[in-house]
């Protein structure tokens, strides 16, 4: 079959036709999926884009029909007023402190706990493992009131520490590290022990460097959780001086007459740090095999 075909059709033209057919096939085949991909992408992007472009419109243009997609006059008045009137700097500082400190502590304690759960075995650890598993089933929303009482009685009410300390341990983080350390061969630990390394030394000098990608992933995810957290800071922080960005934004939306230019500007500003972080580290989130339950 092939031989007869080769004889009747000259070699060169056959190859060319094949190539052309392949090209046409590629184009035809990729139209559908590409269209679907980009329709979805535009759907996801549109609300953000509309919001972002609106934030550059002057107050009068925001509500004047017909609406235009792009601002007719670009302005940063909304941003300027937001920074000036809403005490944006303070909220930004509070949020940065809460998110950064919590993230560092979360990564450290989740790593050490995950390591212990993966590489040691004793009754204490079995009980602790079960306890942490139970956390996945008992969300913070359910123990909101008693948690508030505990924090108040500890004297942490209305302080940033009251927001930071209770949210350090996340079951997701512990299990991420546990699963990672389970894949590290025990021989590595045995070899280090033979060389005279202490248990704590093994963890800090061998395991922590190995777990760097997981630490980055959990670090980014945890930073996002804490940056965007609303309910928990809301019950702990009562003094406007201590507010985080999310609570301050909620106060703007909850007002009797919403000041939209300020709200738009403040909202966009509140997203900038996270977006910058994401653009730098995006491959650690989108390409990692994040396990189920990574939702806080």
């Amino acid at each position, binding site marked *: 079959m092939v031989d007869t075909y080769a004889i009747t059709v000259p070699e060169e033209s056959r190859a060319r036709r094949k190539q052309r057919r392949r090209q046409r096939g590629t184009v035809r*085949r*990729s139209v*559908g*999926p*590409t269209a*679907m*991909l*980009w329709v*979805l*992408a535009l759907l996801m*992007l549109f*609300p953000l884009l509309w*919001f972002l472009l*609106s934030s550059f419109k002057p107050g009068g243009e925001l*509500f004047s029909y017909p609406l235009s997609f792009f601002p007719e006059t670009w302005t940063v008045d909304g941003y300027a007023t937001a920074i000036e009137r809403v005490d944006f700097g303070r909220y930004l500082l509070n949020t940065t402190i809460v998110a950064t400190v919590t993230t560092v502590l979360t990564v450290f*304690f989740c790593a050490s706990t995950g390591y*212990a759960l993966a590489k*040691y075995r*004793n009754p204490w*650890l079995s009980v*602790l493992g079960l*306890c*942490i*598993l139970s*956390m*996945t089933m*008992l*969300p913070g*929303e*359910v*123990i*909101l*009131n*008693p*948690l*508030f009482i*505990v924090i108040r009685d500890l004297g942490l009410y209305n302080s940033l520490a009251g927001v930071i*300390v*209770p949210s350090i*341990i996340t079951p997701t983080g*512990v*299990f991420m590290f546990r699963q990672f350390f389970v894949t590290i061969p025990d021989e590595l630990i045995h070899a280090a022990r033979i060389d005279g390394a*202490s*248990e*704590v030394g093994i*963890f800090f000098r061998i395991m922590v460097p190995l777990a760097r990608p997981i630490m980055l992933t959990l670090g980014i995810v945890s930073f996002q959780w804490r*940056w965007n957290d*609303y*309910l928990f800071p809301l019950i702990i922080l009562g003094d406007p001086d201590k507010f985080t960005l999310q609570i301050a934004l909620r106060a703007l*939306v909850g007002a009797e007459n919403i000041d*939209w230019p300020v709200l*738009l500007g403040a*909202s966009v500003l509140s*997203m900038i740090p996270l977006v910058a972080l*994401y653009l730098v580290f*995006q491959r650690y989130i*989108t390409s990692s095999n994040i396990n*189920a*339950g990574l*939702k806080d």
Partner: protein
Amino acid sequence: MTITRDKVTPAEPAGVTPRTPWRRKRAFGRYRLAPFLFTVVTAVLFALFFLLPAVLGLSYSMTDYRGWGDAEFIGFANYVALFQDSSFFSALGRTFVYALFSVPVGYCLALGMAVALQSAWSRGKTAARIIFFLPWLVSPIVAGVIWRWMFGESFGFVNFVIAAFGGDSVPWSSNADLSLLVVIMASAWGSAAFNMLLFVAALNNVPQSYYEAASLDGANGWQKFRSITLPSIAPTSLLVILLSTLGQMKEFAMIQALNGGGPGTQNRLIVQYIYETGFARSEIGYASAASMVLLLILLVIAFIQLRIGRRSGSTW
């Protein structure tokens, strides 16, 4: 000689080898001290901010505690009152309606995004992946603001487009059902990125040979999707559905910013009900009882999740 050696050698591995890691660790103190050091802070934090509140919550639910003074034990009176409280049931019912609609919408959106990203033939995947992930960065509060801005009754983009095509402006915020519809769309938009990641991981594990075999048999794209893709990712699908159900039952922040549970209190969901009872009205005992009911519902959902997870053989 030989006899004794033969007798000794089988006895030794049988008695010791299977338990060596255990025994050896017990013999040395440092193998117990080190894991204790690694976990002691976690254990303290767990006990203080998780176990203690959980126990307190259960006991408060049987008292009339109001946040100060003495709590008086009143048995199950809170629960009895709760089951006669129509505002509790309306919040719970609204939460179920919300979860019932937002979970399938979010599921389809996330799966569609994952399939489009995984298709070998689509172009511009890197850019699309970044775009798909952007809503994950947006906090629930800002997401609520964004959708409120889009669906404003007299100033929103959507009503403007509807008016431009000659339609009447739609009461997105004064009609309770339409308002919930906006919340559903916003939640699907906000949670899609994360579920998409789970789907992408699952789609990567479907053997390519299945699709090749199906192509040889002349199956079209839709048939391949229905008969190969969907069954292959069934465990992930169940996981996504159950995780989002748990998440949607706890919705609070986004709806706060989007419509504040309005119009009126018609879209008040269960967490908002607990928050308002416990903090605004300071009826901690009563709110704790409501929390326990929510916990029971979540536990039932989590129980189903664990059973399905165990059947499909995943670790957690």
